[in-house]
């Protein structure tokens, strides 16, 4: 059952539409990730939920009750910020306990609750430290502890791992879901890093162009994005989008995009004479030998990543494609020889002329 619910939310700033009739249901205890590029309205969404900004129309429900008339401090929702927002003159203990003091809890309860949350987040040994004595990772944990110490029903996390280094980011990706499960909290986590969205989200909502374009399990969004915009937000390098022509005969379709030719049996494709192909770089096989169905291409540049190597290949004048291969495979490729590619047809996405997914 939906625990946190947005119903037909509209919000605009002067001429700019931020949300156009947005609805969303989040389940109790769910770890939900809101993912979108900068400027897509992620921060506005958090402000509406926390109550520091109001929507133009539509309502926000918690456990079936509208919370629109509640002030921010009356909502059972707390928030942790990207830039930590710790009080510099207070030590970690005082920072974490500050919301409990505002709630006028007694001293022994405050002590017990702070220690409980600090232990879970592994900062119990630095509670007497001031923020400037804490590492970035510890600051992030302190900020998180402060938002969890009030045991909120819903916690909003605004890109909390953006300003920490890679080691801490990976540690937290492992730990965060476990810690939050212990609090039985419903989590709404905002990020602009697709890897983080896929790693953390039980479901991901893709926010782009005033709407949630996809709301689904991360694998589903990656493999079957509902449109080209969503598709392009995932992957490094991102998906190749090629303009294609389709000539169907009965149920079989012949799709041509530049020099790529694909024959498939998708009845859904019939009638879509002009379409787009979405091909992920890892679904292109690269080889020095030509084989049946492969196409000769020109190698423009090779840029190694950490785990894979990216090849910029030219299909024809003005049409380039990016392919990514594993480190082992790239060592077998000789840059001075001819290059051939072959597309893994079963993973290709087909979009219509309006860039919506067909199949």
């Amino acid at each position: 059952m939906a625990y946190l619910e947005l119903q037909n939310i509209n919000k605009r700033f002067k001429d700019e539409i931020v949300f156009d009739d947005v609805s969303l249901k989040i389940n109790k205890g769910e770890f939900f990730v809101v993912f979108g590029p900068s400027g897509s309205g992620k921060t506005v969404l958090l402000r509406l939920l926390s109550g520091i900004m109001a929507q133009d129309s539509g309502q926000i429900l918690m456990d079936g009750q509208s919370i629109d008339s509640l002030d921010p401090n009356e909502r059972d929702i707390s928030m942790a910020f990207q830039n930590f927002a710790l009080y510099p003159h207070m030590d970690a203990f005082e920072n974490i306990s500050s919301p409990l003091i505002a709630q006028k809890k007694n001293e022994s309860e405050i002590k017990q609750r702070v220690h409980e949350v600090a232990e879970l987040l592994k900062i119990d040994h630095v509670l007497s430290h001031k923020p400037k004595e804490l590492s970035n990772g510890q600051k992030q944990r302190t900020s998180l502890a402060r938002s969890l110490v009030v045991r909120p029903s819903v916690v909003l996390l605004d890109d909390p791992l953006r300003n920490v280094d890679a080691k801490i980011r990976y540690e937290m990706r492992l730990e965060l879901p476990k810690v939050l499960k212990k609090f039985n909290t419903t989590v709404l986590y905002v990020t602009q890093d697709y890897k983080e969205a896929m790693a953390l989200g039980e479901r991901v909502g893709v926010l782009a162009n005033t709407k949630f374009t996809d709301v689904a399990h991360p694998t589903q969004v990656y493999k079957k994005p509902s449109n080209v915009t969503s598709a392009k937000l995932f992957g490094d390098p991102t998906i190749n989008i090629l303009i294609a022509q389709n000539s169907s005969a009965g149920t079989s379709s012949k799709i041509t995009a530049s020099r790529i030719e694909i024959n498939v049996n998708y009845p859904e494709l019939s009638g879509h004479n002009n379409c787009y192909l979405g091909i992920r770089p890892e679904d292109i096989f690269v080889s020095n030998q030509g084989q049946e169905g492969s196409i000769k291409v020109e190698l423009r540049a090779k840029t190694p990543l950490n785990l894979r190597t990216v090849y910029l290949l030219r299909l024809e004048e003005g049409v380039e494609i990016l392919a990514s291969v594993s480190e082992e495979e790239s060592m077998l490729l000789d840059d001075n020889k001819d290059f051939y590619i072959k597309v893994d047809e079963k993973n290709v996405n087909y979009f219509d002329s309006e860039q919506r997914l067909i199949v």
Partner: protein
Amino acid sequence: MAKLTINNLNKIFDVKLGDNVHAVKDFNLVLEHGEILALLGSSGCGKTTTLRMVAGFETPTSGEIKCNDTDLIALPPAKRNVAMAFEGYALYPPLTVKDNISFGLMREKLSNAEIEKKVAEISDLLEINDILHRYPSTVSGGQAQRVSLARALVRTSDILLLDEPMSQLEPQLRAVLRARVKDYIQHNKKTTVFVTHDQIEAIALADKIAVMEGGELQQLASPFDIRTKPQNVFVASFIGEPPMNMLNAEYSFEDSKIHFHIKNEKNDPAFKISYDKNNIDQSKIANLSNNQKLVVGIRPQKINFNTSSSNHDAKIQLTSNHWLGDQIHLGFELNGVNIIGVADRNFEVQEGLNVNFTSGSINLFDLNSEKVIFNGF
């Protein structure tokens, strides 16, 4: 032809009387004609100060900077024949995007036709041909950075200097623009130095990477060697994503076996990685002494996951399993030690997983000096 040589370069800033900051310490470099160098490090490591000394915006405290046989330090910035893209873009607000790009070319006294051709080529490459008539104040941050990059790339110069050239690019464009810019620089044989804090960008673009920290050059090597042969703990932890697993350990040699006793956070024994002495090249252990305290570094992609019940180092229980499209990140815990591994995207995660730390896959560092003892043990 432009070969850049830097000898014993130092920069000391006088912050207050008697309170100095040694921003760049004894920096040495030889960059051959057409090579691309990345100055890589986190903020405050001295990378930008080094770049600014080459450009002529900072005067070195001591040392030498030469282009071929010309002493650059004696020349003012305008006479050095370098083209630079600045981190803050530094576009001319009253000029259109197109005029910003062609401004430097007019000073080179190229014909109008040549200028048109060059501007068209570079704006195709960087996908800014639809904003050529706009003014800098009306374009986005990512677009402004592409304009600034275009302006530096089109110039005819001995040396190309780029300060964080791709930090603000739209994520969807980053991979393709990196590849095109690399192709352009290689094709035009431009000797290039660029500053970045992003190790992925450094590895993707550079022929050589200079990793800096605290004003000191930590390692200067090819991207491949930086990844596979890190010379100290800093370089090993800075390069790679997910980062290298860095485990505290102690070495022992007993019963013709080589053991690395891995410790957990509380410094208690957690597990050990062992090799048969007969299977290990003796030169590998020549520099190790019994009970020596080490840091064992293991790249996530070097951890071998398998389901076979024999021939493995440890049985594991996964603590996380993140499918990311082109790779899978697998987290597990061995007696209090958290480790992250990477599997191929087609790997099927099952119950009863085992891991191998195969010979050749680990890097050994001395715990005290933090210097490398052996890469690829």
